[in-house]
């Protein structure tokens, strides 16, 4: 008995909600862990105290993000079975092991090195401490590796056979290194760096706007602006390459992203804006530029791109959603590019720290990395529909045999609990950011060495920050 169609919609909403809430925290942890490793490396190299202060400050926020990521991740470990029994039954033999490796990696990391990074500053030498920080940063990327191997396999599955309606893995190397995996891994990792960079820039801009201009604040503003300047263009190149890969393996996704219905001969136009209508099979109010589609998507003047009408209606992703989620992501990317370039101009004119409109822009761009990240994930996930494992298993066949009341109830519970719990977590992170890195004499105090015994044993990331939450 497959679930009802209402239950399917609710289960999809639930997954979208819980995974969107979850991904915020790992993305922040990945970005900030690597930023912390850079800060500590710079401190070891230059001996300048400002880097160490910034390390203390941002490692607190990293720790809260990491803690929240672990807590919200527990739900994901059970949601596949609870809501997506069909998927677990058919493809659990591939996705389950990959996710188990992620869990093992994360625990190994937490057990071994997180405690030293967060609490062991006084107990191990600076070089060993730096090594621990680097391993934590590397560990967050290893977690990314497993999660994206699993997701990419669902997008471009290979290395398996179907026996009795179930996936049987044949070649794990092929499964992990499937065609879309390298592109998605690079795109996601850079996205996490941009998440951290925009947050750091926004935080520093907020303090500059309030007239706090300690060395730490200026330094982090400068570093973040520089990071965005370098990373935003690289991310665009990575995204472009990812797009070429998608055109090869998931042409319907590209057609839906571009709101393209007909296969145009002799060069495809690009819809800049418009409103794809799935029923009328056309994109209304389209503003399009001739040949730009071919140029962007095939890198040729008249490359052919298959329109949505070449795919059966039941095989088409929802173009209205992915058309706009994609444009949200690209729009954020272009704004980041602008932020980076303006930062360069102001830096060359020595005005980076005292241009108020630029600081307001940077503050407004604080969440842009996260918005782009979520919009990008919506694009790739909704663009894979109506398949959960592309070409192998339809989403409608993946849902659990549950009633819509059950799934609706659990969705409601999740929404309430998540807003309360993770709302508090985000509020606390914002509060820590508002307190800012220490200025002047405050910095002499070395925080974060609570706990007794051997380093690494007070390893709860959430206990790293001690600032009160409600004062």
């Amino acid at each position, binding site marked *: 008995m497959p679930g009802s169609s209402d239950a399917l919609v609710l289960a999809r909403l639930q997954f979208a909600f819980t995974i969107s809430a979850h991904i915020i925290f790992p993305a922040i942890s990945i970005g900030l862990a690597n930023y912390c490793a850079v800060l500590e490396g710079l401190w070891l190299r230059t001996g300048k105290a400002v880097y160490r202060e910034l390390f203390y400050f941002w490692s607190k926020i990293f720790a809260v993000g990491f803690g929240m990521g672990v807590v919200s991740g527990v739900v994901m470990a059970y949601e596949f079975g609870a809501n997506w029994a069909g998927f677990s039954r058919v493809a*659990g033999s591939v996705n389950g092991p990959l996710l188990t490796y992620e869990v093992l990696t994360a625990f190994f990391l937490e057990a071994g090195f997180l405690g030293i990074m967060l609490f062991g500053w006084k107990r191990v030498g600076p070089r060993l401490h730096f090594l621990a920080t680097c391993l934590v940063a590397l560990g967050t990327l290893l977690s990314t590796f497993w999660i994206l191997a699993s997701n990419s396999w669902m997008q471009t599955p290979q290395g398996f056979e179907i026996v009795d309606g179930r996936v049987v893995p044949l070649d794990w190397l092929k499964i992990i290194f499937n065609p879309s995996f390298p592109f998605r891994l690079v795109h996601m990792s850079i996205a996490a760096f941009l998440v951290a960079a925009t947050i750091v820039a926004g935080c520093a801009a907020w303090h500059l706007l309030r007239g706090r201009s300690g060395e730490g604040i200026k330094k982090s503003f400068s570093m973040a602006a520089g990071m965005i300047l370098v990373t935003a263009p690289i991310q665009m190149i990575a995204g472009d390459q990812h797009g070429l890969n998608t055109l090869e393996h998931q042409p319907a996704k590209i057609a839906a992203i571009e709101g393209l219905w007909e296969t145009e001969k002799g060069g495809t136009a690009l819809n800049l804006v418009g409103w794809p209508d799935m029923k009328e099979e056309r994109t209304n109010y389209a503003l399009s530029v001739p040949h730009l589609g071919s140029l962007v998507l095939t890198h040729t003047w008249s490359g052919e791109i298959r329109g949505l009408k070449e795919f059966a209606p039941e095989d088409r992703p929802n173009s209205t959603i992915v058309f706009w989620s994609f444009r949200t992501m690209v729009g954020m990317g272009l704004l980041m590019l602008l932020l980076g370039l303006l930062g360069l101009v102001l830096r060359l004119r020595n005005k980076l720290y005292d241009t108020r409109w630029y600081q307001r822009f940077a503050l407004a761009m604080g969440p842009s990395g996260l918005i782009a990240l979520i919009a990008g994930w919506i694009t790739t996930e909704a663009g894979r529909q109506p398949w959960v494992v592309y070409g192998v298993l339809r989403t409608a066949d993946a849902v659990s045999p549950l009633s819509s009341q059950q799934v609706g109830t659990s969705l409601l519970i999740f929404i309430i609990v998540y807003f309360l719990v993770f709302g508090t977590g985000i509020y606390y992170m914002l509060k820590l950011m508002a307190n800012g890195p220490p200025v002047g004499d405050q910095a002499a105090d070395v925080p974060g060495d609570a706990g007794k015994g051997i380093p690494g044993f007070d390893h709860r990331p959430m206990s790293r920050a001690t600032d009160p939450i409600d004062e």
Partner: protein
Amino acid sequence: MTIDVPLIWAGIIGLGVFLYLLLDGFDLGIGLLFPFFDRAEEREVMLNTVAPVWDGNETWLVLGGACLYGVFPVAYSTLLPAVYLPVIAMLCGLIFRGVAFEIRSKARRTQNLWDLGFIMGSATATFCQGMILGTLLQGIKIVDGRFAGDAFGWLSPFSVFCGLGLLVAYATLGCGWLVMKTEGDLQQRLRKLLKPLSSVLLAIIGVISLWTVLGQPAVAQRWFGGHNFLYFAPVPLLVLACVVGIFRSADSGHDARAFILMEAIIFLGYSGLLISIFPNIVPPTLSIWAASAPRSSQIFVLVGTVIILPIILSYTALSYWVFRGKVRHGDEGYH
């Protein structure tokens, strides 16, 4: 001869679930005892006894879920829909409890609210775990590898009773832990709770055992068929002996005795569950072999697990060792 990989995995996951009950049981129990101790410094001490270890204890739940998914996907995809709402409520309870645990030490004005979240989260998680175990013991209808039972099959007098039973079990376990880790007036008052708690627990274990044996012929056959009862009789007898031991330790004796005996009862109860259902992973029909992922999946995960599991185990043991001994009010450094 080929190695029976599903059997190895059943052993690993069985161990994981057991460690979870053993370890997270007592720290959930502290949340259950929280309402009875409302002085700020007492609550501080109670929480400090588990602060360094509680999140490690929940490791086993995540690892268990992930391994079940990767290794026994048929069990994972039939059990979870069968106990859908209890699982969701349990997860939300654990989230609430975990975050409340961490935030309360950073809260001043709102600390009472977070304490309430800690209590409610602990109670919800425990009750739901008991209902899940009860539902599993009653059996889940599976047809063609899919859950085919009633949507509210998890809601029965038996499962609700198991939920209440686990609340008592975890509270007793938490009480034993706290007697071991505290001293003075707080410890004396905790000791007084041991007798009533363990008596109720013994009665509950008795009722659940009878209910299962009378209600399920297959379980009765497992326990009483042939000479089986001769082999399995030590289980109920040892439970009885443990409760007698707890009674005696309530008045005097070593501070750790009640806790160790209580952990022994958890072990015996868990053995009873395994005796009743093995070799099924989801009774009454799904065996560990039928629930298994393809051999290549099981071996792939086994490689990583064999390397990392011993590290996690020794790390866990070491952190309990480092934080051994009594916890006093004013001990710095846990939060």
